[in-house]
């Protein structure tokens, strides 16, 4: 049973009138909600494409005029728009990220990737070293961004928090490292001796199939095991077997999709009227490429829908569960429609595409709560993650623009 003891934890930070609040007492709340079926609260997205288009366009102009420096401000406005248009049980989420703090992380990442680009142009060894440095820093950066993103999200005034530690982040990426290092070595070997590299592709594919799903599983588990809201901690109860099964099915669909795509590609090229020059060949090439990617929308949607469902259906907290019922067919239809409209409008349709996707994906999720959501109580932890005790050790929640 959930612990709603926070009401009496009055401390220096609690307002002085706390004792006289009209909130229901814990015992009454517990007594009332003894019926078996939990309350179901679906998420809803209320934003519109035209409104987001206007935000996006103004952001774009600001970015162009400031040569990208105002990116953190643009990002905050975008994230806040999406948060404030996501409703749960009558109230919306909020994002309290400060653009100034995000500027720091943004500049850091920009420097990192800029250095990597420069290094990769001068020599292969430098490129490898740069890649190695990025890979070594990546889990810490990723964890920082999770802390920032979640720590600055709130619902009904209560902040979320991410409580995973850095060591855990590195462990979570263990499988991917195990996949990445041999792959890198194999690639270097292939470059050095192209003749003997025939067995490379199947080997890499086998490695990816074996370790890829595990890597994804570890990362998601880390991510969903250390979330906190009010006084609830989350847990993730999926099994490795479920992850492998999902990826195996997606891979099979992907193979079928690639074959279908290849057939379409060849068909377009074969049926195209004999080209009269480079312009024609280019157009045929573009249409053929689009025809190749179209059937791949099916495995891509399958992957997206099923991973969302797996991730959320297995996320639990005391007294709270999630129900994600995103269907593959509606998502696939949406993806194809978005793709066609994007091509037709040369990319201007993008804000509408993003809003439609958010509406579909969020609308499929519902929160199942054993008691009314009103009863949730926060702990005495202060809202901003920067104020946490180990601020010195942790690069303290900065946003890396992920």
């Amino acid at each position: 049973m959930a612990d709603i003891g926070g009401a009496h934890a009055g401390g220096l930070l609690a307002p002085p009138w706390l004792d006289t609040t009209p909130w229901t007492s814990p015992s009454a709340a517990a007594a009332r909600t003894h019926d078996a079926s939990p309350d179901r609260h679906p998420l809803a997205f209320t934003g519109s494409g035209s409104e987001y288009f206007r935000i996006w366009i103004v952001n774009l102009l600001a970015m162009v005029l400031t040569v990208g420096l105002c990116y953190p401000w643009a990002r905050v406005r975008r994230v806040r728009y999406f948060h404030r248009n996501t409703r749960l049980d009558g109230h919306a989420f909020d994002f309290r990220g400060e653009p100034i703090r995000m500027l720091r992380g943004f500049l850091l990442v920009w420097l990192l990737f800029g250095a990597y680009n420069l290094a990769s142009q001068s020599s292969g060894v430098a490129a490898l070293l740069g890649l190695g440095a990025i890979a070594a820093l990546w889990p810490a950066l990723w964890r920082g961004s999770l802390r920032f993103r979640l720590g600055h999200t709130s619902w009904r005034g209560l902040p979320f928090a991410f409580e995973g530690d850095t060591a855990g982040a590195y462990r979570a990426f263990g499988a991917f490292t195990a996949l990445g290092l041999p792959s890198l070595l194999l690639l270097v070997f292939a470059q050095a001796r192209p003749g003997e590299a025939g067995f490379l592709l199947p080997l890499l594919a086998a490695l990816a199939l074996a370790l890829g799903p595990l890597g994804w599983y570890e990362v998601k588990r880390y991510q969903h095991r250390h979330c906190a809201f009010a006084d609830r901690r989350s847990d993730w109860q999926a099994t490795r077997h479920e992850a492998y099964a999902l990826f195996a099915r997606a891979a099979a669909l992907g193979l079928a999709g690639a074959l279908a795509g290849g057939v379409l590609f060849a068909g377009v090229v074969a049926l195209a009227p004999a080209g009269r020059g480079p312009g024609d060949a280019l157009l045929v090439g573009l249409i053929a490429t689009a025809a190749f990617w179209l059937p791949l929308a099916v495995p891509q949607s399958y992957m997206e829908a099923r991973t969302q469902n797996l991730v959320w259906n297995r996320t639990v907290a005391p007294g709270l569960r999630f129900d994600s019922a995103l269907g593959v067919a509606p998502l696939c239809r949406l993806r194809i429609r978005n793709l066609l409209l994007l091509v037709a409008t040369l990319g201007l349709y993008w804000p509408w595409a993003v809003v439609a996707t958010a509406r579909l994906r969020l609308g499929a999720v519902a929160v199942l709560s054993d008691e009314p959501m009103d009863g949730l109580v926060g702990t005495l932890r202060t809202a901003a993650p920067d104020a946490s005790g180990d601020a010195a050790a942790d690069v303290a929640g900065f946003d890396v623009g992920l």
Partner: protein
Amino acid sequence: MTVEPLDVDWFDGRHARPRRARLHIERDRIQVLEPESGRPEGRANGRPGRRVVLLELPLAAIDWPERTRHGARIARIAGGGELHAVDVGLWDAWAASHGLRQPMLVRVQLRWRFVLAVLLVLALLAYGVWRWGIPMAGRAAVTLLPPVVDRQVGDAAYAALRQRWLADSALPAARTEPLRRALEASLARAEGPGREPLRLHFHASRLGPNAFALPGGHVVITDELVTLLDGDETVLLGVLAHEAGHVRARHGMRLMVQTALLGAGASALLGDPAGWLATLPALLGGAGYTRDVEREADEAAIRVLRAAGRDPAAMLRLFERLAERRARGTEASGAESIGIAFASHPDDAERIARFRAAALAR
């Protein structure tokens, strides 16, 4: 002017249950009041309105939200807690009546005519960058690149082409040597001494009658072109001078840099949509740069021909021969397929006019 206090849902930051309250602003302080308090009539009648203040803060401690059409209005309280609007319309009216202005960016995006103006400005900026910004940047970047880079790129490209497209020339030295010497002599007269020698190659090729230049000084001309022009030395010289113009001005590297910049710019601008979509503007825009570059090379050819004392109008014979070949159906034309957008050589008509004008202007 008394303004009705505003009904809000107040979250104190520790409980998920909202508390209905009213907001009242007095000078620079904001008060969160009990729901039934602060009735203006009470005060107007001389009786003090019953006012139970739950929270009082300086106005600066509240972070006012943007006005959006659909989203919630959530005002953050410094130190924890949020104020949520109960009625968005009333909230906006109340905020406006208290002079809580929206930041300029928000006011711009709220009105479609401003947004259209922004679109226009963006379009103009994009055009300006494409037309002038990137070519300038390309020229500047190329001056920073040492010539050794050109040679490396050109050598690699030549080696690759020799493997697949170029076979050994079937022309006797008696035909190629005079051409080689004439080219060297004309370039020496046009450019002066001390320039890096060109590496001229003759090859038989599946490409048909053609000539092209690679970075670092490689110029390739196919046997088929020499045969087509029947050993007409002036025209062949013009063609070679055109290609030499490409080499001297480092057009190959410039095009590479400009295409890369265009691609990077396009993907930064349209970053989020499908990655390969961003290559479309790069392709379309890049072809335009090629046309500029071909124009410059034509002008270089005219200069070299004049310096060698030959008539630039001789080049018209090249276009005649090529047109005859097309009419015979033995070769495809490159320029008419999608219209000018994908054409990499300017329309033949444009080039013919240029050479004709060059002859007349002697």
